[in-house]
Every structure is written in C-alpha cells, then in structure tokens.
C-alpha cells in the first residue's frame, strides 16, 4: 500500500523553479531517504508535502487520500508529522511541556480555556512515554534552555513520535550532532516500528544510508535518480551531482 504519493509536484519562487515535476511513491512502512546537494529543493519538497507551502501544480496523497488542498494542520490530524532542519521548539518551556504541546495539538482539549493543563495527567503520562522512547524521560522537567543541542534534536523527534504518526518526515535529524549523538539518534530511528513510514532528508550519508530502504536523489528540484541503496550509489549521476566524482 502506498503511504505517500507525490505526483508531478511543481513549485516556483518567482522565476526560480525549486520543485519540478517531482514524483514519489513511498510504500507503507518504507524508510525513504531523500538526498541532494544544498539548494536541491529537499526542504521545499517537505514543505509542499506537509502543506506549509502550496504547490503550483501536482498533487500529494496520504494513504490514497488527496491532501493537496488540505491545510497543513489537518494533515497532522491525518497522521503526518515532521521535524525541522532548524530546531523549532518552545525555548521558554520545559522538555515535558514541549511534548505535551505536541500531544495537545491532536486533542480536542486544546480548545478548553477552563481546566489546568498541568493537571492533565493522561497527557503528561503520554508525554513521558514519548520521552522514554528517545531516552529523555529522566530530564523531562528540565527547561529546554538547559539542554544540549543533541537533546533538543531528540525532543523534536519525541514531539513527532508523540503524535503517533503514520508518516514521519525527518528533515536532517543528524544535523549538528556529535558522533556519539548520531549513534544515539540512529538507534532511536531504527527502533521506530514499521507501522510508521519514514521519509528522511539527510546529508550524513554514512549514517543515513544504513537506515534507508530506497533513496531519491534530487538535483535542482528534479528527481534524477531513485532506487535501492546499491542502485543509487552505483549510478554515475549520483557520483556526479552529489558525491562530486
């Protein structure tokens, strides 16, 4: 079954075409890696898939349902979650509150102006479960300002996982991490069950290639190579545009 189907997606900013007839067919449970040099349009493609940007043409379907015109927030309710290349968290809050906000986003409780959020034990317990998955439950009450960069990356992933997504879009989850932190995040991503489809942008080929079932190479907004790890690595166009050979 196809989890995410992108068909002829196009996007231009003025005269600059950043996404050009992109097609993606990501099967349920698949780990898809999207690679490409800087400026290839990878993050723009994510923004188009999540609905943060509206495409000029083409379509996006989530488990067979056309979501091209569906607002970004509703795609989240349909099972799409993402992380950001530049960490986007609530810096004045604790780790726990960050994850609680992620859980609250899918709960009808978010419209309630009368009850105290701190007393919603079921949300807090779910938040701790999500933090446990990323190994941060022991510092849940710590203010985000007192955490390391690597911990913040894991908070981002915890927030996405807390929403029990069907399709998880990870935008450079290893960016800025030390070697040890990369290994931790790699283990964390490997442990995500196969009922979650993962589409991941990553520059760290050594780490990311191990995780990927299939790889899509983008260049100047176009898909130029797609296939298994062996096929993509062996393709001369990959070496030409990405590996610099």
């Amino acid at each position, binding site marked *: 079954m196809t989890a995410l189907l992108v068909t002829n997606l196009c996007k231009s900013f003025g005269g600059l075409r950043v996404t050009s007839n992109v097609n993606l067919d990501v099967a349920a449970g698949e780990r898809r890696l999207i690679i490409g040099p800087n400026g290839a349009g990878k993050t723009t493609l994510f923004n188009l898939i*999540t609905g*943060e940007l509206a495409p000029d043409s083409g379509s996006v379907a989530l488990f067979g349902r056309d979501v091209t015109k569906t607002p*970004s*927030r*509703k795609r*989240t*309710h349909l099972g799409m*979650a*993402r992380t*950001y290349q530049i960490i*986007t*968290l*609530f*810096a*004045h809050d604790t780790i726990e*509150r960050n994850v*609680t*906000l*992620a859980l*609250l*986003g*899918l*709960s009808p*409780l*978010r*419209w*309630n*102006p*009368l*009850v*105290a*959020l*701190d007393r*919603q034990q079921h949300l807090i317990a779910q938040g*701790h479960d999500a933090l446990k998955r990323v190994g941060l*439950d*022991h*510092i*849940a*009450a*710590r203010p985000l300002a007192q955490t390391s960069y690597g911990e913040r990356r894991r908070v981002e992933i915890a*927030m996405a996982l807390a*929403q029990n997504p069907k399709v998880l879009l990870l935008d450079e989850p290893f960016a800025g991490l030390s070697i040890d932190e990369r290994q931790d995040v790699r283990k964390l991503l490997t442990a995500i069950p196969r009922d979650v489809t993962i589409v991941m942008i990553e520059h760290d080929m050594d780490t990311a290639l191990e995780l990927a079932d299939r790889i899509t190479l983008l260049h100047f907004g176009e898909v130029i190579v797609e296939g298994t790890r062996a096929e993509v690595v062996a393709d001369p166009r990959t070496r030409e545009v990405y590996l610099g050979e």
Partner: protein
Amino acid sequence: MNDPALLPVRSRLAGAVVARRAAIGVAVVALIAVPYAIQQIYYVNIASQILLYAIFALGLNVLVGYAGLVSLGHAGLFGVAAYAVAYLLAAGAGHAVAILGALAIGLVATAGFAALALRSTGISFIMITLALGEIIWGLAYRWISITNGDNGISVSTRPAPFGLSLDSPRAFYDATLVVFLLAVAAVAIFVRSPLGAALAGTRDQPRRMNALGYHVWMIRFWAFMFSGLLTAVAGILFVYYTEFISPQALALTASAEGLLMVISGGAGTLLGPVFGAALVVIVKNVVSAYITRWNFMLGAIFVAIVVFMPEGLVPGAVRLLRSAWRAASRQKPAAAIAGPKQ
C-alpha cells in the same frame, strides 16, 4: 522525572507556591481595606479608576503578552461598550439590558476587529488595529445622531445589583473590586489552560504550532474575543464611574496609555498590567496635581523602566529581589566561615 539536578528547584517551587498564595491573600485583604484606609473620597475614586483600567490592561495583555499581538485600537473597543451602555440607557433600557447589550455589542465589534486585524501579525497588525480604533473614534466624534458628538452622552444613574446602591464612591469601589478579582481569576485560569498554553505557543512558534495540528488563526481569534470581553467590561465600568462618555475616552492616546500599562507593568505576566495601570493612573491623576508637565514625568518613568527593567516592573522587581536574596544567601555562609570579629 527523576532529574536530580531539579530537586532543589522543586523544593524552591513548592515554597514559591505557598508564598504566592499568602501574597494573594494579603493583597485581596489590602484591596478590600482600601476604601476604609483612605479617608478622602477623591482617592477612593482614584482606586476605582485603577481597578477598572487594570481590567482594561488585563484584557489588552491577553493579546500583547500572551498572543504577541500588539493592539493600538483597544480604546475603540472600550469606547464601543461604554457608548452602548450610555445609548441604551438614554433610549430607556434598564441597567441589566444596557450592560448585557453593551457586552454583546462589544463582542460583535471585537469579532469585527479580529476578523480584519488577524489577517496579519507584527507591524501590520498594529497598524490595522490603530486604523480600526481611529475609525471608532471618528464615528464617536462625527455620528452625532447616535453619540452626540463632542458633547458626549451622560448617564444619570448607576445600577443597584441585588438592591445594593453603587452611588457612593465606596460602594462603587467594592463593586469594581469584585469585577476586578473575577477578571484576574478568569485570566489566571485561561493562562494555565490548554487554550492558554496553545496561545502562548502561537506567540513563540506559530509555524510549529500549525505543524502540530493547531488552528493558529482560530486560537488567536478566541484570545481576541476574550481580550475584547474584558475590555468591554472595563468600558462599562468606566461609563458608570464617570457617568459620562465622550470621544476623548476612545482616542489614540487612550489606546497608547493601555499599552503603556501593559508594557511598563510586564507584558505576559498576570499582575504586571495591574501595577502598570496603577502607575499610569496615579501619575495621570495624582502626580499631575503637583507637576504641570506630568506627561514628561510619565515618559521619563517609562524610559527608566525600559532601561532598567526591560521586562516590566513586576518581573523586573522579582528579578532584583531574587538577586538580592541570592547575594544575602552567599554572604551568610561567608560570614559563618569568617567567624565573629575579635
């Protein structure tokens, strides 16, 4: 949950909660005692004015502090409710109808403001609210058949809830205090609620909130409505307090003064706007009796706050007190080590 680094923090937090509850109790008792402690009627009236403007500032703070949306048109909403009461009373309605009608009209006007202003954020939001406030002021000034223009509308009586007359300054103060405490409680509950947390999230990371499944526009809309409700309540109290309403109460300077109350006291804090309202009302009404150029004085105070306590009076004072407490705590062990002087 078991972060050992947080154990002293938790202990301090528990102490802070007890101290806060005690402080709230003392503050409520002090507020109740104000009209009995102050002998002059003039100052009781000033105290009532502080409370009603504090409600106005609390409402504005919902937008400015918690939503990150700076409005320069809130005096327009304040005036709409005040004019609605005056007009309905002049048309022969009773106080209950006039108050409920004014609240409804105030909320309709707020919805209109929100629908137009929430199309943008930042400077554009400020300019749209400024323009809307000026439109309301222009209508109050020029729509003479409804507003009586520059001459304003007088209100001859005050309501008597549960048979209690509010004609005396002390009775009016008591009624204003009850409404004020309800407003503070409402804002405190809202801020701690899921909707309040979502609103703060839209202030800090609107894009992220959208990606997490929140309807950012709608959250801001309901915050605007809550802000407008409190502003309307303040407007109703104002028209009963002065027993008169004229375009001056809706002017841009009134909106700017509201903003000054919020920012000087501490935007995004519960009590900051209350202290800010007290500061502005006291300088405007009391200091102006001694200093002709009180506007200069108010400006100088505001500049001093921005320079020395950019976060506002309340959070700034808390910061200074904490620093002093830490300094005193450090000195105690040092003195113990040094031992008594020979």
